[in-house]
């Protein structure tokens, strides 16, 4: 087996604020193989965005601080690189697509100037060459009459078109890794579907490795190979999409899946709602961060943090951080109901 494209080890990030130290990311470790699509799911404040921003030196420091860990990308530790070296990687080897296409494009610069920037910066193309390539890119992401549209300003594009432009910028230098942070969240469902189709198509063509950060389980189901569920700055569960959707082992994943409407969900039935509030990360709870909201929590969940591990009966590659055996508990519950 070749070395993974990205290997995150024991990454912890904190923010020093006036109200105390916020432990935003706690001891996160995972690997991504080349060509894989990893969906990272979690609610606001689960550390899903912050940890990728921290990897690339994009969090403001201070107040942000990387306490520990290493991030190996193509054999180099990103956390040990200088700002200048990181700049060479950002937008070059690693592309980024941000959440809100309405605000992530500079309103006073033409699309051309914003699209050309990574090309001249990283590939050393001349302006003319870069423009040609930029038109190709726009064409590739499905913007009609790209040659004319490229000279326009962001406000002349619709939301979906702007997200396509963002994707084109992210893909401009044929990155090894594309990180999309809530890239479809701000879009209409139909436009969302189009953008997802586009990403799937581009992945197939270029074999780009993708990290797709979202809070939408549905998006993950349609796009990712593997899913990683984060909560309270920790990874709660990780594994192949099918396996996780079929048999979640973390009560948090289970709660997330239950709170989604299904095809068979009757309109009269109320959707499940995870009780309680996300934890206050200035004083991270001892033990399993999800325990206070977890109906299945055992006493041990409140005292000891569970490691991410594979437990008996799990599909290969599927791991969970839990002290309880969710499938067994669920089966028992169903038994008593009947």
């Amino acid at each position, binding site marked *: 087996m070749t070395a993974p494209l990205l290997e995150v080890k024991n990454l912890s990030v904190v923010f020093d604020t006036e109200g105390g130290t916020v432990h935003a990311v706690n001891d996160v470790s995972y690997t991504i193989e080349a060509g894989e699509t990893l969906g990272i799911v979690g609610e606001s404040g689960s550390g899903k965005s912050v940890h990728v921003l921290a990897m*690339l030196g*994009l969090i403001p420091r201070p107040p942000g601080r990387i306490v520990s860990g290493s991030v190996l990308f193509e054999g180099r530790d990103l956390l040990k690189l200088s700002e200048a070296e990181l*700049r*060479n*990687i*950002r*937008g*070059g080897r690693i*592309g*980024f697509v*941000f*959440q*809100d296409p309405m*605000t*992530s*494009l*500079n*309103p*006073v*610069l033409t699309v051309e100037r914003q699209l050309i*920037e*990574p090309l001249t*910066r*990283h590939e050393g193309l001349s302006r003319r060459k870069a423009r040609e390539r930029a038109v190709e890119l726009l064409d590739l992401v499905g913007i009609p009459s790209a040659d004319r549209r490229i000279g326009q300003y962001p406000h002349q594009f619709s939301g979906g078109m702007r997200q396509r432009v*963002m994707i084109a*910028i992210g893909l*401009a230098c044929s990155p090894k890794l594309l990180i999309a942070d809530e890239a479809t969240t701000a879009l209409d469902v139909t436009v969302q579907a189009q953008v997802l189709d586009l990403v799937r198509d581009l992945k197939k063509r270029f074999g780009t490795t993708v990290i797709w950060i979202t809070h939408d389980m549905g998006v993950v189901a349609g796009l990712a190979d593997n899913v990683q569920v984060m909560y309270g700055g920790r990874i709660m569960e990780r594994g192949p999409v099918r396996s996780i959707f079929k048999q979640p082992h973390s009560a948090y994943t289970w709660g997330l899946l239950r709170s989604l409407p299904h095809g068979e969900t009757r309109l009269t039935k109320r959707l499940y709602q995870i009780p309680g509030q996300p934890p206050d990360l200035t004083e991270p709870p001892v033990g399993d961060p999800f325990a206070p909201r977890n109906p299945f929590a055992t006493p041990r969940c409140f005292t000891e943090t569970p490691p991410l591990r594979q437990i008996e009966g799990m599909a290969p590659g599927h791991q969970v951080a839990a002290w309880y055996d969710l499938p067994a508990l669920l089966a028992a519950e169903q038994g008593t109901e009947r």
Partner: protein
Amino acid sequence: MRSFFSALLRSKAGLFGWIILSIFVLAALLAPVLGLDSPVRGSLSARLDPPTWTGLFSPGPHPLGTDQLGRDILSRIIYGSRVTLAVAAAAVILGGIVGVGLGIVAGYFRGMTDRILMRLVDIQLAFPLMLLALLVVAALGPSLRNIIIVLALTSWIRYARIIRGQVLAVREREFVQSARAIGSGTLRIMFRHILPNVLTPALVVGTLELARVIIMDAALSFLGLGVPPPAPSWGRMLADGRTYLSTAWWIVTFPGLAIVLTVLSVNLVGDWLRDYFDPKQRGLK
């Protein structure tokens, strides 16, 4: 461009300002071809001639009269406007480049850089600008270049303050983050991505500064520290003519009127620009 003119037609004050300012600028640019008398050589036989149209005895064709050395006042006002407008524009542009640059630096880096630069601005604002200008001109000597430098020195602080505030807001916008994510360096982010977003307020500050600098230039000339003679200047015309105020009112009245009209028109244009560029103001009134 069409919306520019239709917006202009809707504002009487703005239109008035633009027209007056255009007349002054055109007159200044075309001065050599207007067939005016020499602004510096007069004839003593024609000294203190009143304006032709007053009906008083006036032999020469001097529409605004002549001064104590027999020089044509209209010609001196127009040639004087060349100096005044050029000096003021140069000072405002120079001050603008320095002020906008330092404002972006202060707003982008914040922290110590910001504190030092802004305290410098505070100190200079607390110090009477006229006194500062007098000191510097007195020390360096009055020359065209020195006057421009001095006026720019009093001007950069206003840009710096306003631009800093704008940058503080712009730097938090998401496109700055996404520029960082495509590997843009600090300088590139500051001047390629943030600068175009703060040019509009800089332009508005610029017009208002232009008006202030014109007055200051006139004041310096009035005190004898402006552009040195024989170049005509509005401030010195006022200074020279004030002893004749009771006998030859036209010597000070017309240059004074020129100053008032120029400053007024520049201010009106500045106000209008501010409204024009502020989307919240559009469609109102």
